[in-house]
């Protein structure tokens, strides 16, 4: 059996008392064993059946990762239903699109925020019932199709999951997933996603003793795969934080052994380290930096296998006084495997985490491949690749250097999206396969930039390099049909503030900070340094420090903080035009209907 | 045997006289409490230090006035030093911490004064220095002209009350009528505001500590005449505690009246209740009991400011 409810049942039979799910609620961690997990599912399945969920019914789960929503997945699937997860911060437009594309009939919303968004988006979709989990603030809502989750479960009779599971087939559809970048909906079968998960588990020998924290929405395909599905397939415990504000503390409390994170989380950690250390006393600051330098030197030697006994002792010392406590602060002490889901981290970041013993493993995959087609093996030391194709997966590069793959865990597009073509799927990314068989990803093929000279390159690889600085939050390369490459830089507010305070800069607010010559020099130095590693044609010639950060609600960054070029081009058109017309100073009318003055800096 | 009215009046007057002495010590407390909210526990050791300084100098042949002058100077320097090295760094601290700091100061001063001088008991005979008839020969003063009222009073007590009384008058004038007095009252009301309007808090504090030092010197000498210059002077301060608590920590008139009440009450209690209580030395605690009884009915003391708690 490879269905999700089936696997839950299997886990229950194998180790009924092991912890399946742990969540922090009202101040303490509460846990469900696999037996209780199954009980919950059977109750919920009864409830959903009473709302006429059956074979093929699409149920949207709309909210943060909270137990009731997590149980809903298996409960609905045990009835043959299909789950479409939606990001809790999804805007009304996105919500409408997803609900329409998936033909969802039932919406399970976390609380008032989601219900309200739904009411904005409601027009012409097929939702029959809206079930809310948290009734806070909803008392006066008179909408006829609005139901309280608790009331439905109270009335319903539990269902025997064992019987239901037998009716399911492995290739039944389990999920509809929305791909934010492709703007397409995929359907994923039980078999596809659980197989994919099994491969990851086998490759890294994950056991039921492991634990993982799920702090992002399950609407992110890789998160669904790495946390939810993997916990069910392997039997390890899935931990849910108390609230968005307490994630870091909760992560520390749980001390997971497995970490899954999109690259922005690692970036956040790096910036956060920098922010904190910049605010430290001079002595601590200097010691930290010198330890950091020594650590990286020793790590380099280690990689080359040249570290001496002294190095080992010295590293142990550095770890003891600086980095082991630092890991503790971020809750990384017990991490055995850390999976990065989207592309690669910059070498500096990658090496740093490896040096302190958080062995990051890049992985690659997108919605069309259920989240993962390749994972770096454990103890991998190369920051540039994303590992070899997993078992049952083949990867090749076509003449346009696009990455094509074949896999036995395939998601099929519902309408639109990339098409299966003679068995090979176009991943939508460009890259190459090295002699070692490792895949290198350069970026999305649709994002490729062609300079006037005809030179074509992927902006993401350069952006990645730029954002290795803790002072850069995000960046966007521009240069289509231009003579040279330019970049828009968003500086990280907290780390840069902290840095500016140490430097005693005089400024008022973020916008003014971005206009400081010192900040410009900081970024300039970083880019100049980075230019040395780039081929001549791709060297960055101009940059602009943006006057504000990119806004998720405006769609300028994705839910995983990746820049969304089209929206930015639309929103910040003035900037791009100015940079391309080679102005030095210009003004921008921004979306907040205010005017800002910006400078283009040359390198 | 009938009731001895004359004896009673003598006791009363004796009580009043010793009460004046209490008042003097109490005023030192009140000054510091008013200006900085500190319950200065080092008052006793200041007394000891001041009188010890004086006595050691006279023992070494320095004449009375010079010794008095030098001792006063030393107390002023001491006061300024306390402001600089203790008060200033501790400004705006918790009251209890400030109180404990003065206990620390007391410990220091106790060690210091006995270290640079010595721990012996010194007698102090004022009449050795002051050529006053009053103090000279007869130890008692007799009201002779009213034959039926033969009241005996120690001359020294009368002298002491006069000294104490005039000191109090001077102080009262200083605080009510001078600019420094006004600033001191402002400081005692609200430190922060006083600083904000440009009153140099530290100068005010230094003045207060210096004045307190001088009061300690005077009080120390007057007390020492009765109980000799020694460790017992510190205990004199414990006696002053009920006085200021009855009078109210923030009131100088309170300190005076409180002193008189305690002085009289204590003597009366000792003489008329002592035996009834079946033991001697009830004056050890009787003053405290009086204060306690008093406070239960008026928690802020006789003249203490009633704090209206704003909620």
């Amino acid at each position, binding site marked *: 059996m490879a269905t999700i409810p089936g696997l839950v049942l299997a886990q229950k039979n194998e180790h009924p008392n092991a912890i399946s799910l742990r969540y922090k609620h*009202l*101040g303490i961690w509460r846990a469900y064993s696999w037996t209780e997990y199954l009980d919950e599912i059977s109750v919920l399945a009864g409830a959903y059946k009473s709302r006429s969920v059956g074979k093929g019914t699409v149920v949207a789960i709309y909210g943060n990762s909270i137990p009731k929503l997590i149980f809903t997945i298996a409960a609905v699937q045990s009835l043959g239903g299909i789950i479409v997860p939606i990001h809790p911060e999804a805007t009304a437009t996105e919500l409408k699109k997803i609900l329409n594309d998936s033909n969802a009939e039932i919406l399970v919303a976390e609380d008032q925020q989601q219900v309200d968004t739904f009411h904005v988006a409601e027009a012409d979709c097929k939702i029959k019932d809206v079930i809310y989990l948290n009734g806070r603030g909803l*008392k006066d809502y008179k909408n006829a199709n609005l139901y309280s989750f608790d009331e439905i479960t109270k009335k319903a009779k539990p269902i025997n999951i064992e019987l239901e599971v037998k009716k399911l087939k492995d290739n039944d559809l389990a999920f509809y997933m929305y791909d934010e970048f492709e703007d397409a909906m995929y359907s994923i079968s039980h078999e596809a996603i659980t197989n994919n998960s099994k491969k990851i588990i086998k490759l890294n020998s994950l056991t039921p003793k492991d634990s993982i924290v799920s702090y992002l929405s399950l609407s992110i395909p890789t998160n669904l795969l790495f946390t939810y599905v993997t916990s069910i397939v392997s039997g390890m415990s899935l931990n849910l934080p108390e*609230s968005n*504000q*307490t994630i870091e503390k909760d992560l520390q409390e749980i001390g997971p052994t497995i970490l899954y994170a999109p690259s922005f989380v690692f970036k956040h950690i790096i910036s956060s380290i920098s922010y904190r250390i910049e605010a430290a006393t001079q002595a601590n600051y200097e010691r930290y930096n010198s330890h950091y330098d020594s650590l990286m030197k020793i790590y380099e030697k280690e990689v080359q296998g040249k570290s001496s006994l002294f190095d080992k002792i010295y590293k142990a010392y550095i770890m003891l006084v600086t980095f082991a406590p630092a890991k503790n602060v971020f809750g990384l002490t017990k991490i055995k495997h850390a999976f990065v889901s989207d592309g690669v981290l910059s070498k500096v970041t990658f090496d740093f985490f490896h040096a302190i013993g958080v062995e990051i493993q890049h992985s690659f995959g997108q919605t069309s491949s259920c989240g993962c087609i390749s994972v770096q093996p454990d103890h991998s030391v190369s920051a540039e690749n994303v590992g070899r194709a997993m078992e049952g997966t083949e990867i090749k590069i076509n003449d346009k250097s696009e990455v094509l793959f074949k896999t036995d865990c395939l998601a099929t597009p519902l309408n639109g999206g990339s098409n299966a073509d003679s068995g090979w799927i176009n991943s939508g990314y460009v890259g190459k396969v090295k002699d070692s068989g490792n895949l290198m990803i350069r970026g999305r093929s649709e994002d490729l930039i062609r300079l006037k000279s005809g030179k074509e390159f992927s902006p993401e690889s350069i952006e990645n390099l730029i954002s290795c600085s803790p002072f850069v939050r995000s960046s966007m390369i521009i240069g289509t049909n231009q003579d040279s490459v330019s970049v828009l830089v968003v500086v990280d507010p907290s780390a840069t503030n902290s840095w500016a305070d140490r430097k005693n800069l005089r400024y008022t607010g973020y916008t003014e900070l971005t206009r400081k010559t010192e900040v410009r020099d900081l970024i300039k130095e970083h880019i100049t340094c980075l230019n040395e590693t780039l081929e001549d044609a791709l060297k960055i010639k101009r940059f602009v420090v943006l006057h504000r950060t990119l806004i998720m609600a405006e769609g300028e960054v994705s839910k995983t903080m990746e820049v969304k070029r089209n929206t930015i081009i639309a929103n910040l058109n003035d900037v791009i035009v100015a940079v391309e017309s080679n102005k030095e100073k210009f003004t921008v009318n921004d979306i907040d209907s205010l005017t800002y003055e910006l400078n283009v800096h040359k390198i | 045997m009938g009731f001895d009215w004359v004896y009673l009046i003598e006791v009363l007057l004796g009580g009043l006289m010793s009460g004046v002495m209490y008042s003097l010590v109490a005023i030192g407390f009140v000054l510091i409490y008013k200006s900085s909210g500190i319950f200065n526990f080092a008052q006793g050791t200041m007394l000891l230090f001041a009188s010890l300084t004086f006595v050691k100098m006279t023992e070494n042949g320095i004449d009375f006035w010079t010794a008095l002058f030098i001792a006063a100077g030393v107390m002023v320097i001491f006061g300024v030093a306390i402001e600089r090295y203790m008060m200033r760094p501790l400004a705006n601290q918790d009251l209890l911490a400030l109180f404990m700091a003065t206990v620390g100061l007391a410990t220091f001063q106790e060690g210091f004064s006995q270290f640079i001088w010595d721990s012996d008991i010194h007698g102090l005979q004022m009449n050795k220095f002051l050529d006053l008839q009053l103090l000279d020969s007869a130890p008692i003063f007799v009201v002779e002209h009213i034959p039926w009222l033969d009241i005996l009073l120690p001359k020294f007590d009368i002298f002491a009350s006069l000294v104490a009384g005039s000191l109090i008058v001077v102080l009262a004038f200083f605080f009510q009528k001078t600019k420094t007095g006004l600033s001191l009252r402002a400081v005692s009301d609200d430190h922060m505001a006083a600083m904000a309007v440009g009153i140099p808090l530290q100068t005010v504090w230094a003045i207060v500590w210096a004045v307190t030092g001088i009061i300690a010197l005077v009080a120390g000498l007057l007390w020492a005449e009765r109980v000799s210059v020694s460790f017992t002077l510190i205990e004199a301060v414990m006696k002053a505690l009920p006085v200021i608590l009855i009078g109210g920590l923030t009131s100088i008139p309170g300190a005076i009246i409180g002193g008189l009440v305690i002085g009289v009450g204590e003597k009366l209690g000792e003489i008329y209740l002592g035996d009834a209580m079946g033991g001697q030395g009830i004056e050890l605690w009787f003053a405290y009991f009086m204060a306690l009884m008093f406070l239960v009915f008026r928690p802020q003391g006789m003249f203490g400011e*009633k704090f209206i708690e*704003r*909620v």
Partner: protein
Amino acid sequence: MGDLLKVENVTLQFGGVKAITDISLNVKEGEVCAVIGPNGAGKSSMLNVINGVYVPQIGTVTYDGVTRKTISPREAAISGMARTFQNIALFQGMSVLENIMTGRNLFVKSNWMEQGLNIGRARTEERASRLAVEKIISFLQIESIRKTPVAKLPYGLQKRVELGRALVSEPKILLLDEPMSGMNLEEKADMSCFILEINKEQGLTTVMIEHDMGVVMDIADHVIVLDYGKKIGDGTPKEIMANQDVIDAYLGVSH
């Protein structure tokens, strides 16, 4: 719904200074009643009379059907009154959690011996109190600061914690003394939201002193205007806005 609270002809003086002169007011069960007026108008004194911190010279307070002249603050708490203070009166030496826990003290039946030995009832009650407190923490969305000493919190959050401490005692009437003073707009919005929600969901009667006319007009069902110890207006927000006496004495130009 009837009157939950009725203040009749109350006069309060401090050493000759009249803080309140002959004021009467009614608070209906389940309403949000706002008391407005300039500083020194006797608003806080009114609250203090209601829950027994001050004893009025003349007048009575009828609460929950019982008329009385004096009540101790403790009796008031037992009878279901909870309040917050104008100048935050949190226990500065304790954490957020401990502060809110003090609001549960009336529910604790175990004695200090049991608590010292950490046995029996003491444990179950501690657990129960904590649960009640955690529900409030979750309601006020202050999970991330539950172990922080209150002295370290920014002002707005301290006010929120104080509201929590009042709410956790499961009161019948909530007396709020300037719950939103010193807050920025966002914090005011939070606070209004909590007050309204508690009022709507649990029907908790609320008496609130507030300066911000915007807030008062938006969230109050009933407004009482005091001016230097006297009542000059009493009615719905709309009526108050139109009341000439109120405009003259308090609002100045009409908004």
